[in-house]
């Protein structure tokens, strides 16, 4: 039986017919919508490469059944940049060498965006490392990732100050 799925992805409303309810949100993003920035790593919720924001909260897209999220707002790595300008978290990952091979990076960045929005880690490196523990990096770029989150936290706070 075909079921209809409506999603707002990176600001665009989409309507999809799903003829198989087994599709995860990750499958829909990658296979149906061509949004391959979100990576399939372990496909079991253990590596964090598939991290996206569902209604603003970071979630493993591989363990999110697409139909269960009908009507949700999804933000993926493709929706982060502001036009030609990188999002401050993206810029910080480049500035601080927060990656090597880059495969885990979209998930790391989406997770970091949510971590900073959660406003619980602040500028405490230990809390940042704990808060990023759902994202594995097999190249072990962890030192750079922590630096990038620290710098992005500062950059976003400055932006907010200027906007106020």
């Amino acid at each position, binding site marked *: *039986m075909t*079921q209809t799925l409506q999603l707002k992805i990176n600001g665009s409303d989409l309507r999809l017919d799903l003829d*198989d*309810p*087994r599709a*995860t949100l990750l499958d829909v993003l990658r296979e149906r919508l061509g949004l391959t920035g979100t990576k399939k790593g372990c*496909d*079991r*919720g253990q590596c*964090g490469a598939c*991290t996206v924001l569902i209604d603003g*909260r*970071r*979630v*493993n897209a591989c*363990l*999110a*059944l697409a*139909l*269960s999220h009908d009507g949700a707002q999804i933000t993926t790595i493709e929706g982060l940049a502001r036009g030609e300008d990188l999002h401050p978290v993206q810029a910080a990952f480049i500035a601080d060498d927060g990656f090597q091979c880059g495969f885990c990076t979209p998930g790391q960045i989406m*997770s970091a965006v*949510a*971590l900073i929005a*959660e406003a619980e880690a602040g500028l*405490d490196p*230990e*809390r940042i*490392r*704990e*808060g990023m*523990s*759902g*994202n594995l990096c097999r190249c072990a770029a962890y030192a750079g990732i922590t630096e990038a989150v620290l710098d992005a936290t500062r950059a976003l706070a400055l932006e907010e100050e200027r906007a106020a």
Partner: protein
Amino acid sequence: MKPFAYTRAETVEAAIAAEGALLAGGTNLLDLMKIGVAAPDRLVDISRLPLAGIEEVAGGLRIGAMARNADIARHPAVLARFPALAEALLSGASPQLRNAATAGGNVMQATRCSYFQDPASSCNRREPGSGCSAIGGQTRNHAVLGWTEGCIATHPSDMCVALAAYDAVVMIEGPGGRREAAMESFHPLPDAAGAGPAPLSPGEVITDIRLPDPGGMARNARYVKLRERTSFAFAIVSAAAALDLRDGRIAAARLALGGVAARPWRCRVAEQALVGQPATTESFARAAELAVQGARPSGDNAAKIELARRIAIRALSLAADGTPDRLAALPASVFAGENNG
């Protein structure tokens, strides 16, 4: 993954009538379906049932079954009055999983026994009568209390250990009406043949979890968890402890162990032995001895008994010191004091 039919239940009544595997956050069930351990014909999505609330009720707390782990752990009443629950939740899984996983799903999660998770292995829990490949296998994550030759699996939840210590009650609705079950005995222990009866009958749905007023224990409660890495790992052993201290003496005590049995292991004999005693390491050591009474290795895991004893002492000692105003950077870590905890 085996094909299935998907339906969404908008009411508890519809979920009870739907006759299918209940899908909430999906973090456990979808994973088990991917590896072929769960193969339901019908998924009933209950994630939108109006059961996500967390409310203070007469000094206690009511946690809706669809409340997400992250939301429970951040709730002001949980942090203020049930801090060991927040600490237990934050010591489990990852931020992404905690944003999806629900209280009801946490209670119902399957064991992380690697033989249960491997369809090629024998497992009385997965396939009654097939045997148990865990016996004689890798048993680091297996039981040292309440196990049988039929099943040596443990329940993996951190949340349930804290809930058992807090005297939580699981509220259930089903075809036969409402019933309640104490958290500490909700999960059946194994029998000689296998995992024992299912905790829920067909059609039953967990609606909420109720915690009574913690009284004088609110700010003397901790959760401590030993694991192979300090974050994003299941417990080897863990303990939730809460104390009601009056002038340095213990008026009431709560202690539950995790990672040691097929259910969170409430240690009532140890609790009773603490009443009237001074809050000293000696008292806690005697209680911890009682807590692991009857423990025996189910394989090459005798070390877990000693670890559980020590973690119980540590949890009681930390509870006596008082719950910190802000949880440590590494929740429930035995290393927290060495960093900035």
